[in-house]
């Protein structure tokens, strides 16, 4: 129905000066070239938007979107997710006392544990996240407060961090490594997960702490300044809020220590929104027969280090499986279904309009 009219491209009919009456010099006429471009006669597609011409588009969009939406919705629903808030706002919460008494300056760790039950078993790999709410990791000054060169292992930046790190650039006259507010506010709760089996025994669930960061971050962006971390970080100070220096983040695994500690890398990737989650550990699938996390009782043991109550923040632990489209989020599916339905509905409206009012244009549009 979209009418198309291609104007014939006309020949270049440039008049040469050859018609002169035996002129000695060739007279250059000022006559413009007769080309389609210069005469603005380029072949063109000229859609006219009327009810009749656009209604197919609406139906087509509707018909494509609704199935996609259903597919998305279903696959999102297949994702299993479990979330538990351990901030300790309520007195009933086991972490209440920890939360109450804790500040950045505390030296002794406070441990609390939370029980929870998984109604359904989690098949395949389970991803364990910690979630923070009301934490504005996207604050403009916060986002800027880092030195990528330092994190990349650059020696000079290590000793002389970027100005952007101010006021977390130096402490006690020594450069801070890693400098900046992001690093300074590193999330330092430790979460451990135990499965309580039928015998009421606590089975530690093995949590994989590598492979949670982007490959490029781990291997390209973040580098340690040297092999021997202790030596390399000599002459630097730890961030103010940290209890231990950067080269002791994970003493057990040299490949996960220093700047290339994956928990650190994950934290350094600042979240987009004030409510966010960050991948903490991966619970890998053991075999095809048993679910990764069978349904049942679990205990989450928290080493409570990270104060959030001062800014009304919340801390959560999330267990989730993922699908091809990421974590559980029914929104996109619903959105597709809604938009598809609206399109379909508008298509019907247009159809009515077209039938009632567009008769003239039908008669006029005969020849197309």
């Amino acid at each position: 129905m979209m009418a198309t009219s291609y104007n014939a491209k006309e020949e270049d009919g440039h008049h040469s000066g050859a018609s002169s009456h035996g002129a000695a010099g060739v007279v250059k006429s000022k006559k413009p070239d007769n080309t389609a471009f210069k005469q603005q006669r380029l072949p063109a597609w000229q859609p006219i938007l009327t009810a009749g011409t656009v209604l197919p588009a609406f139906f087509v969009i509707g018909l494509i979107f609704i199935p996609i939406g259903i597919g998305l919705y279903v696959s999102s629903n297949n994702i299993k997710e479990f979330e538990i808030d351990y901030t300790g706002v309520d007195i009933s919460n086991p972490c209440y006392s920890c939360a109450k008494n804790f500040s950045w300056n505390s030296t002794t760790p406070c441990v609390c544990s939370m029980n929870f039950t998984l109604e359904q078993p989690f098949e395949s790999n389970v991803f364990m996240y910690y979630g923070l709410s009301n934490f504005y990791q996207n604050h403009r000054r916060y986002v800027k407060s880092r030195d990528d060169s330092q994190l990349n292992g650059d020696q000079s930046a290590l000793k002389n961090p970027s100005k952007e790190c101010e006021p977390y650039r130096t402490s006690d006259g020594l450069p801070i490594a890693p400098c900046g507010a992001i690093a300074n506010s590193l999330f330092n709760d430790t979460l451990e997960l135990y499965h309580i089996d039928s015998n009421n025994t606590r089975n530690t669930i093995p949590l994989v702490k590598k492979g949670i960061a982007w490959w490029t971050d781990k291997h390209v962006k973040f580098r340690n300044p040297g092999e021997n971390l202790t030596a390399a970080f000599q002459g630097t100070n730890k961030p103010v809020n940290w209890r231990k220096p950067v080269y002791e983040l994970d003493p057990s695994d040299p490949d996960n220590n220093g700047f290339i500690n994956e928990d650190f890398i994950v934290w350094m990737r600042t979240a987009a929104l004030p409510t966010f989650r960050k991948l903490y550990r991966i619970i890998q699938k053991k075999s095809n027969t048993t679910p990764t996390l069978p349904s049942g009782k679990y205990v989450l043991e928290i080493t409570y280090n990270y104060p959030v109550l001062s800014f009304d923040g919340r801390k959560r632990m999330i267990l989730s499986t993922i699908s091809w489209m990421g974590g559980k989020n029914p929104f996109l599916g619903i959105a597709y279904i809604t938009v598809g339905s609206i399109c379909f509905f508008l298509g019907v409206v247009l159809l009515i309009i077209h039938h009632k009012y567009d008769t003239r244009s039908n008669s006029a549009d005969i020849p197309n």
Partner: protein
Amino acid sequence: MARETEDPGMAKASKVKRQRKKKTKENKTRTVHANLLYDNAKGEENPNRHYANNKIKTTKYTVLSFLPKNLFEQFHRFANVYFVFIALLNFVPVVNAFQPELALAPVVFILSVTAIKDLWEDYRRHRSDKEINHMDCLVYSRAERSYVEKYWKEVRVGDFIRLRCNEILPADVLLLSSSDPDRLCHIETATLDGETNLKQRQVVRSFFDLDCDFDPIKYNSIIECEKPNNDLNRFRGYIIHRSGRRDALYKENLLLRGCTIRNTEEAVGIVIYAGHETKAMLNNNGPRYKRSKLERQMNVDVFWCVIILLVMCLFAAVGHGLWMFQYGDKRPVFDVLSPDGTDLSPIMSAIYLFLTMIIVFQVLIPISLFVSIEIVKICQVYFIHQDMELYDEETDSHLQCRALNITEDLGQMQYIFSDKTGTLTENKMVFRRCTVAGVEYSHDANARRLAMYQEMDSEEEECTSHGGTLPRRDSVTSHQTPWSVRLTFTHFSYSVLSADKPSSDLQEKDITPDPQLLDKVNECSSQMDFMRFHSQPMSQLPSDLADVIDFFIALTICNTVVVSSPNQPRQKVQLTSTKSIQSNHLQVNKGSSSSLITNRSSNKGCSSMLSSPSAESTLTKLDEEQPPRDLEHNFGPVLPCYDGKAWNLEEGELRYEAESPDEAALVYAARAYKCSLVGRLPDQVTMELPHLGKLNFELLHTLGFDSTRKRMSVVVRHPLTDQITVYTKGADSVIMDLIKPPDTGSSKGKRQKKIVNRTQNYLNLYAADGLRTLCIAKKIMSKEQYACWLQHHLEAETAIQGREELLFESALRLETNLQLLGATGIEDRLQDGVPETIASLRKAGLQIWVLTGDKQETAVNIAYACKLLDPEEEILTLNEACALFNFTTFEIYPSSSPSSSSSSHTPPFMVHRLGLVIDGRTLAYALDKSLEDKFLAVARSCRSVLCCRSTPLQKSMVVKLVRNKLKVMTLAIGDGANDVSMIQVADVGVGISGQEGMQAVMASDFALPRFRYLQKLLLVHGHWCYSRLANMILYFFYKNAMFVALIFWYQFYCGFSGSAMIDQWYLIFFNLMFSAFPQLITGTLDKDVSAETLQQLPQLYVNGQNSEEYKPYMFWMNMIDAFYQSLVCFFIPYFAYADSDVDLFTWGTPFTTLALFTILVHLGIETKTWTWMNWLSIAFSIALFFTVALCYNASCPTCYSPSNPYWTMQRLLQDPLFYLLCVITPVAALLPRYFYRACQGTLFPSPVQVGRQLDKLPAETCRNILSLSRVKVGSPLSPKPPFLSLAKPSPKGCNIKDQRSFPSSRASIV
């Protein structure tokens, strides 16, 4: 010799002193000495050293000054200052939002684009300057004692230059010597004023009789003249000789830079003005800059954008303050302290944030809009230039846009003010009728032939169209120097056309004589021949016959026509001069242009002394009772030629070059009666009469035509009667007043009275036929009278102060007590397609007023002929009769006029059937402050307005009045110097590059070769330019608002901290690169309706008049749409990524992509024609974005803080969610607009949309629909758009707006 050199040396010192004194006293004059005298002296001593040298430099910049000067100029634009301010703000650490260096990028980009454009233009100017500066000319060198070649730029004031034929003048030169025996030099001034007829220049009087070669060494006079000015037609000054005698200098003595020497083998002159002080350069104004209506409207909305920006910033600042406040003293870890570790109070940080937000949201003020508009306008101008239909083959000229930035105004015109002569008409005069001594000769055969020609015209148009310009170009091409290329505007040769174009131009040459009149002429001349033979006094001739012959003599000689022969287009026909009777053979020069014949009499000695000025010699000649050089002598040599066929042949080839076309028409008419002008010299005119052969009229004086006197006269000594006769021709109104009151006593007086009355009747008749009328009169003076007059006249001529007035008075004294001979009626044909153009322009809702200097009857008739007035219309005439009672006229108008009394009851369109004709004197009253409102009210209720006899000033006052009072867009179109003021006052001035020189064109914004091109220019190009630009501007506002709003919504989720999820690189280059090209392409190429339909349906023009593409509310609609779209674009990704582990810039990158897609699809919905360029530009935009993003994200793992987007895009491209977002978001965002457009297209289509639908139909269906009595447009639901009521085209086709405005206008009348 030694004495001579010494003498001036001494004189020099005193002169210099005197000159210095003068300089300090009054700076009104310039003194020029010959440089030769000071050759040896250093520059210090040269009195001419203060004057500009001939090196021209039209460039604005030098290598060093370019940067500062250009920047300075660019910062005159407020927007640039604003953007620099913002960029600099980024360098303040507390408020900076982006990397300071990066934030400079857009400003630097915009500035450098403009700078590069300026640089390129300047370079081009520099190159052409260089070419011109290095042209050669001959300058006299003292050392070499001869003329040596020098570059133009080395010429200085006071130099002597030798000019050869066809050379271009390097500077303004005072003509001191010419190889021409008559001391003439012909110049072609086409490059200056576009007039291609040759102009005669005379050697300065004192050097007139110098017969040997001019010797510069011996020159030792001083020239005092006025300061350089740009008036081409004025030059005043005097030359002081050593003897102390002063001689006046006129413009006739000055050769202007840029002109070409013709017909003269050699001329020598002294440079008076050089380089930038020459009149040509002073006249050379650059293009004009105006601000269009659309731009004014746009600026209002830019202002609104600023307000929106401030509101948004304020909102964010307050939000941030509150956000900070809620945390109180417990500063959260993510709220970073200021660099020095101090705590910021909420209020302080809110203030800082306000500034930061201005930086972040700066894109809302579209920085690239200004540049884009400029680019699009340049493209539009290019396309208008390229339009073949606006190219006139006959003159090889096309439309010129002289003002580059008001193209869109062409689409919004409401009033057109048109000149008549030369604009509506061709200004090619054809002699149609005449009346001699009260007897009318109707020349019926002529009229019949005209009709025949018109038919032929249309058939032959094709084959003859090209020949026009070529032969002349042959002679010119070889001399086409860069100079002429540069200064050539339109090569329009009036005379050549008349010679070579067989079709329309034949008419003015080939006039079929009226048999009756021809008989009389023959009879008369044979009688005169007889009488001469028998030595009878001529006064015995019967008076009616004498009148006839006098009439033709007047037609032939009372003009300034130059005779030339077409074979050698610029070669003067060399004529016998009275000085050399021996060698008195008619010599038509057939040689090449260089071998010009110099039949200089050899008997005169080579006098180095200056002879007395010729004026004096004339006087002395008069005094001595010179026996009439016997008639034998006068005619003898020519007689043999007369009966020879060879002569007849040659006569046929004579061509006349006239300054105004009616002069030529009269001369050609006279030739049809065998009274042909054969040659013209400064002191003599030769004409040929049947039986009598050649007659030499001694030309004593020529009082040229001017518009205040409206007449011209020649004073000649009649060779047959030896009487001093004044022949005058001029406008009838003027001449009739100057006629000698007939003394009623004698029979002669009665006869005179009868003649006057009859002639007046015929004149009225002619005027009613739309002919231009001229009266011819003569007067015989006694020698004493003449001598007396001449004395006074010479005094007037040499006066420097008030010379014009004195000359005017002197002319008045001469031109009185005339005897009426007859009158002529000349037809000024309408240009092709004028009625059609006017009809369709009027259908387009344009009010057309004609402002002309012609008399009422002529104007009214032309108005009828071009369908401006309709016979059915009632014409309201306000003329001199009621001028005195003018005031009351306006008062009583509603009751007195029968139509208007009824109009109060009849529908408003009745009123549009009125036509208003007003004449100059009445107009003067009407333009009075107290009456102008009433005048406008009356004029507005009339369908057409015709102002006749209006002065140039009145024309411009009318335009100004309408423009200011009615607040409408006005267009003035004209071709002559008298239209210049009106052209300058109007919003858009259009000049017709026609017959009357280039002054109108120089003042205009657009120059058209023909009136009818106005139709396409306005209806098609105007419409396109307007709708393209309007849509582009709206789109720009939308685009920027939509993009910026994304960040604004984000502020709600980042604590109003001024954070942007979109990488700063994308943010800054989004406008400049990623989304820039498609809109430029659409803005340049989009055609809402095809050219054909626009011309067939002029009603579509109303679209632009009412600014329907860009109404103020549309800006807000677009803003609302932009905010809606940005909401969709923000919240779909927001919810899709809510509570996920997405990081800031991985989440932000899809926004750029989504916004890009949405913006492009939005553009797609608004694009009406899709050419491959549109597709390409969109594909390019997308490809560019992804390429840049991928490269950028792979380039550096540690750079681009804070986003550090390493590998982000790459990862996103592996994420299915990204693609899903990219599909749904644009669809959801654009759904409302798309739906709205579809509904609009069906339910209430705009006229333009109906036009587009017509476009799509095949040609014949389209034609059928258009020819149907009524095109049904829109659905039955919608009210029938009034614009397509083709059934009754005229009254209702008028502007809707005017109908609406009617009640108010009527109210003001009543």
